[in-house]
């Protein structure tokens, strides 16, 4: 009963945060409501006994990833998104279709027999057990993940660094052309003086 009450409270908070993400027009408001969703999902993980997952949910998602989002929103000075006319098909067909699919999924899930239930405290996911599994059964995926993260770091640095001389660098080129012209004129004048001196 206690489990059910806690689950319901934080499920309502999570869904409210997700809907707020859709309703808000400013990206900062959306980001903050996404943090609310992630925090309440961390509590849901704790209720399921997944301590390690709850901890990294708070540390990685609500900490690192959302800080990155907020940082980029501040950096790009993102304002309120302007309304544009979307496709008519999305409004006529999309929303009823999505509602129908959602209702169908919920109906199937509720009607399915023998799915069972989860108890509070029935499952225990301490960091030690997760680490053992990670370094024995999932060692190769773990190492591949480290390569993936390395590539992502390099990709982020390359993509976000300022553009160098490949597409648009008109100013230095013009300057060098100017310098070349000046040098050519000076050389010509020099030649002329030499030849005039020779002839005289």
């Amino acid at each position, binding site marked *: 009963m206690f489990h*059910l009450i806690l*689950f319901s409270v934080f*499920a309502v908070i*999570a*869904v409210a945060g*997700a809907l707020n*993400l*859709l309703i808000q027009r400013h990206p900062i408001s*959306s980001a903050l409501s*996404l943090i609310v*969703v*992630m925090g309440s999902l961390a509590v*849901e993980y704790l209720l*399921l006994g*997944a301590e*390690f*997952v709850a901890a*990294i*949910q708070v540390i*990685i*998602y609500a900490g690192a*990833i959302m800080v*990155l*989002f907020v940082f*980029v*929103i501040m950096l*790009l000075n993102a304002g309120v*998104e*302007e309304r*544009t006319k979307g496709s008519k098909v*999305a409004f006529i067909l*999309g929303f009823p279709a*999505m509602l129908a699919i*959602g209702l169908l*999924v*919920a109906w199937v*899930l*509720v009607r399915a027999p023998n*799915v*069972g*239930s*989860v*108890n509070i405290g*029935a*499952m225990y996911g301490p960091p030690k*057990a*997760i680490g053992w599994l*990670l370094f024995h*059964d*999932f060692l190769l995926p773990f190492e591949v*993940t480290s390569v*993936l*993260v390395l590539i*992502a770091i390099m990709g*982020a*640095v*390359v*993509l*976000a660094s300022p*553009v160098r001389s490949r597409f648009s660098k008109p100013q230095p080129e013009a300057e060098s052309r100017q310098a070349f012209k000046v040098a050519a004129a000076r050389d010509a004048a020099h030649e002329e003086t030499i030849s005039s001196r020779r002839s005289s």
Partner: protein
Amino acid sequence: MVPLHYYLVLSAILFACGVTGFLIKRNIITIFMSIELMLNAVNLSFVAFAARWHVLSGQVFVFFVMVVAAAETAVGLAIIIAVYRTRETLNVDQANLLKL
């Protein structure tokens, strides 16, 4: 004692919210946040199934999903910065160079 359906329905609702945000939002950063919301919904059903069947592998999968999401966020936000630098806008409707 909470039936497993409840967790799955909550996960489905969050996923549907993410899909809706991906479709109706016009700001590229908010679209990216909707993708994160979908990943979170999938993580919730992973953890719920892991708790139901008493298998820890589900939680390890959640760890991998989080790592991939972090990498995706880093690269995606770098791409957003690059797009903003060339096009001076965050509106996805104005990035229509490939449109006829």
